[in-house]
């Protein structure tokens, strides 16, 4: 662990004042700080997830030359709150053939898996809740809980549509985890560490220092990562687990009301998380394009804004892709993963390793302009 939120805040003067207020109990203060920030981040991400549904409908309306939701609030922006209230007040229907225990457990596992990834998301160079040594690796590992929850959701419903959707979903999520992991491995290789702090510290300065432009292999790795991430979050054109035309609604056919809402919330937050990780790994995260030697809180907030802007730009691309491309067939899905993305990802990994040895870890920009 390189740095935590508390160790970052402890360099400021107000930390000592707060410590005095808490009767010099550092553990209690750390607990309070973490609790406040986790609640803030959960609130922020739930809002982003909720606005994601709104953005999805609005952008799709824009692409299809419709108006989209425009009744609730100005420009219909409060639509997601109305949807949430609607979901709470819906009757909870459970098939009498269902496995009750697993039926309850599946949405909870999805929610746990997605929320646990938020802990390592690098909002800025200082506002990282926990900059674990194994940061990105932890994120990939814990998000595989979503795959289990998709399978369980499909299984527990004991409905044929759900079962097919769950099996498909689980096999798709685990398959596309491989290209994503190997692409992330390339970035680990270039950065020399798995923590987000290390990865971001190599991308400071102008966009030419981003890992996206580090070398040709890293450039391709970004697209492999992005396509794999689309598939891992079950987004179109890879939304086979919930293909409406064939499987009704896939693994959450039998889910109604609040539990369906939690599945949807987890999915939208996960899309944001993979976009944020893509922004941090390849697009420089919250790094500002000019040299920042003074470290003050307002500058951190600017970094948070930059990070959010990059992540939400990728979020926009995800939605754009959804309403532009048709859905794949299952055989195409599997052949894209195993016959195209995985070999390309492995080739990228080897290319990155050879590049590191040949050019001593220098990027294209360093070689051209003689930096470092």
């Amino acid at each position, binding site marked *: 662990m390189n740095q935590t939120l508390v160790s970052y805040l402890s360099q400021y003067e107000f930390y000592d004042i707060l410590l005095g207020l808490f009767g010099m109990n550092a553990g209690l203060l750390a607990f309070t700080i973490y609790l406040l920030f986790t609640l803030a981040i959960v609130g922020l991400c739930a809002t982003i997830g909720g606005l994601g549904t709104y953005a999805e409908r609005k952008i799709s309306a824009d692409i299809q030359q419709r108006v989209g939701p425009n009744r609730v609030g100005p420009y219909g922006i409060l639509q997601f709150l109305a949807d949430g209230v609607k979901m709470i007040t819906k009757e909870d229907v459970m098939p009498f053939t269902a496995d009750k225990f697993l039926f309850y457990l599946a949405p909870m596992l999805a929610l746990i898996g997605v929320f646990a990834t938020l802990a390592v998301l690098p909002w800025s160079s200082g506002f990282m809740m926990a900059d674990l040594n194994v940061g990105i690796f932890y994120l990939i590992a814990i998000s595989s809980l979503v795959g289990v929850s998709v399978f369980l959701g499909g*299984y527990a419903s004991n409905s044929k549509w759900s079962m097919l959707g769950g099996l498909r979903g689980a096999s798709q999520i685990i398959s596309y985890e491989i290209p994503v992991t190997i692409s992330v491995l390339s970035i680990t290789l270039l950065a020399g560490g798995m923590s987000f702090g290390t990865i971001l510290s190599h991308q400071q300065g102008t966009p030419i220092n981003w890992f996206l432009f580090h070398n040709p292999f890293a450039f391709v790795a970004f697209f492999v990562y992005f396509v794999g991430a689309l598939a891992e979050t079950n987004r179109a054109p890879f939304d086979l687990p919930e293909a409406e035309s064939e499987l009704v609604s896939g693994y959450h056919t039998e889910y109604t009301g609040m539990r369906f809402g939690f599945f949807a919330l987890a999915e939208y937050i996960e899309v944001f998380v993979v976009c944020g990780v893509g922004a941090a790994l390849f697009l420089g995260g919250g790094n500002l394009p000019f040299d920042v030697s003074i470290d003050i809180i307002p500058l951190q907030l600017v970094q948070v804004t930059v990070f959010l802007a990059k992540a939400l730009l990728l979020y926009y691309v995800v939605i754009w892709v959804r309403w532009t491309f048709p859905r794949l067939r299952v055989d195409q899905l599997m052949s894209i993963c195993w016959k195209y993305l995985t070999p390309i990802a492995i080739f990228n990994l080897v290319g990155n390793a050879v590049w590191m040895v040949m050019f001593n870890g220098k990027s294209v920009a360093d070689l051209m302009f003689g930096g470092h």
Partner: protein
Amino acid sequence: MFAQLLFLMSALLTVGCAIAVTVTKNIMHSCIFLLGSLIGVAGLYATLGADFVAVTQIMVYVGGIVILMLFAVMLTGGKDFVSRAQNLLGLAPAMGNKWTYATGLFVATVFLLTNISLMMNISQAYPAKNFGSEFPSTVSAIGKLLVKEHVLAFELSSVLLLGALVGAAIIARPRKQ
């Protein structure tokens, strides 16, 4: 303080889910309790300062082995999930007659006594206060060990995995008849 709390929660999760695995009759539920137990073990690794091993545990078990087991349960004719025959006092699935249980009880008692005496010795030799050496970064240390001292094991493990992949693919692949 938090380390103790994390230890307590992980230990309760591990032990509780492990016991639940034994007493659950439904194999699907057993798999899920196994998942809980494995996550608890990952938490225990974290309290021991083994962050890389902890995350590896989550990655391989939760993301891989448990899903594979769920697939296998589904593929082996999902109907016979629940074992009905031969229950131990109606609590847990079991087999054997009263002599089996008597012998098992005897062996378990001997095993437990031996273990307790061993552990008493160990706890005297290594008191709880001893935190041993600290590892500021296990990842880079493990990486260096893997390319230096344990390089043979590292390369051999890839051969082992290749053999497992080829062998399991041959076994699982349906025969064309």
